[in-house]
């Protein structure tokens, strides 16, 4: 049974057709690389899966059941976590508060429940350490470097035990050391039966961790094949259009 099936997903923003008839299937424990030129529609596809946009037409099925996500929390409740390309953090909150935003840890005092800051900061610190990131949970995100923000966004996905993790360019702003950590994390996710979609412009990363690669060009899927059966040269050709389809 497939974990996620996208069936002829189309999305237009007014006159712009960001996606036309894209179908994609993801199996449990599988990592799929999603590649394509700037503006190809990768983030749009991620946001449709994550409940930010409704598709203009087409169907999304999770474990064979059709779903309609009206807002991000619907997708999260269905077991989908996402790292947004623009990271989507609240600058005015601390790193720890951002990690737990929307699912704060609480302690009950009789009828009222209060935030459990110590527990949240402790857990956030553990998650940052796991990513080998020098991110201090109590710092405001506004004061943070790009890589530290990235760690916060990735740490957010570690709070639940999702079926599917979408990562939209998670390694765009981070150091070599942390790229290795993120790739290691993706491998661990796979081993534990989680599926991952990795959007990246970094060919070596995709070939390192992904089982399959799908290529979008101008809103259409032009290739979808096992990593073993393709090469960076072919994928590059597909992205830029030198190779029509594969």
């Amino acid at each position, binding site marked *: 049974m497939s974990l996620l099936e996208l069936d002829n997903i189309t999305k237009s923003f007014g006159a712009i057709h960001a996606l036309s008839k894209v179908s994609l299937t993801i199996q449990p424990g599988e990592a799929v690389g999603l590649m394509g030129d700037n503006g190809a529609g990768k983030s749009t596809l991620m946001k449709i899966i994550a409940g930010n946009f409704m598709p203009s037409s087409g169907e999304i099925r999770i474990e064979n059941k059709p779903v309609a996500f009206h807002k991000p929390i619907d997708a999260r409740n269905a077991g989908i976590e*996402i790292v947004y390309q623009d990271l*989507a953090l*609240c*600058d005015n909150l601390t790193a720890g*508060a951002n990690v737990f935003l929307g699912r*704060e840890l609480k302690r009950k005092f009789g009828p009222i429940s209060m935030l459990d800051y110590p527990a949240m900061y402790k857990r956030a610190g553990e998650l940052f*350490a796991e990513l080998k990131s020098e991110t201090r949970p109590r710092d405001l995100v*506004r*004061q943070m470097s790009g890589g530290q923000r990235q760690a916060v966004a990735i740490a957010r996905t570690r709070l639940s035990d999702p079926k599917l993790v979408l990562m939209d360019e998670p390694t765009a702003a981070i150091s070599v050391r942390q790229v290795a950590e993120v790739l290691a994390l993706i491998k661990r996710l796979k081993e534990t039966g989680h599926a991952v979609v990795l959007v990246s412009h970094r060919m070596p990363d995709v070939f390192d961790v992904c089982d399959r690669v799908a290529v979008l060009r101008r809103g259409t899927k032009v290739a979808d094949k096992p990593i073993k059966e393709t090469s960076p040269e072919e994928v590059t050709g597909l992205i830029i259009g030198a190779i029509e389809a594969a």
Partner: protein
Amino acid sequence: MSNAAQPTAKPDERIKEISAFRKALIRPELGGIVGTVAVFTFFLLFAFDSGMFNSQGIMNWSVVSAQFMIIAVGACLLMIAGEFDLSVGSMIGFAGMMIAIFSVTYGLPVWLAIIMTFVLCVAIGGLNGWIVIRTGLPSFIVTLAFLFILRGFTIFLPQVIERKTIIGGINDVAEGDWLAPVFGGKILGNVFTWLGDAGLIATFERGTKQGQPVVDGIPMLIVWAIILIIFGHVLLTKTKFGNWIFAAGGDAEAARNSGVPVNRVKILMFMFTAFCATVFAVCQVMEFGSAGADRGLLKEFEAIIAVVIGGALLTGGYGSVLGAALGALIFGVVQQGLFFAGVESSLFRVFLGVILLGAVILNTYIRRIITGER
């Protein structure tokens, strides 16, 4: 996880050690605290003998400050959530008028009139918020419209119904009502009688009230102010909802992506602001025994000024209820203190402007230290 045991808190040599004292000092309320100390020092030095600091004088500026505090708490939470409400002053006039119309004109029991007014005004607050969310227009514009709409009704309704702009006689109909004293009553009367008997506070020297203390209790207005401040402070700093208020005002889109019901948070804050305005109105109506079409004029600005003096950021996402309460205290003490000190009342505005400017400059400096923005 194989490498999860990595220690988290390895000391970073780039972080300057900030002393606990400095950390405790640098907080959003600092500007308000400094301002409060400055204002009290000023008046203790220059108006100590004016009667400002005897029991009656203290009660005088406390009541005025409490009025500011009640509306400042609502304005503060709403501003942190990233929105404004310019209709607060008109809402005060409108709420008072509705109580008078319900109870005096239509003869409904006062408790019912109060409850109906609360429901009506909170619903209007919700409507304000709903329009802001639905249209995506700035709340500045939407609530400006309601400033005029509500004020218009407040002048129009009593004229068509009673042919006047002030409706009195509320004290008579409120006699014996169970809910009215919750807004118009006083508490701790015994304590003040005891203080008077013990010679600790002044008592009337002649007349029918001879021997009774000149201050005979704490008005419910002050109790409401304290309750709302504690409620607002706990809500903002200790609860999930408070975290969502900050998130909604900081980056609404990011908050939505994280599953924060931003629309609901904002609409609820509009409703809470309306609730605070109505509390103000009911207390005022019970105190004066009447409702007037011009009540509450400019209160929206006074609330916003108190909040800004208290360190909140006009653009949302940053602020403190305790700071706003101190801002309201500064506002009240300055307004009444200048009166006690015999300063020409028109100069109040000059003082207010200077304090506002000074507070905002100080607050900006403090905020930069806290948030590291430039």
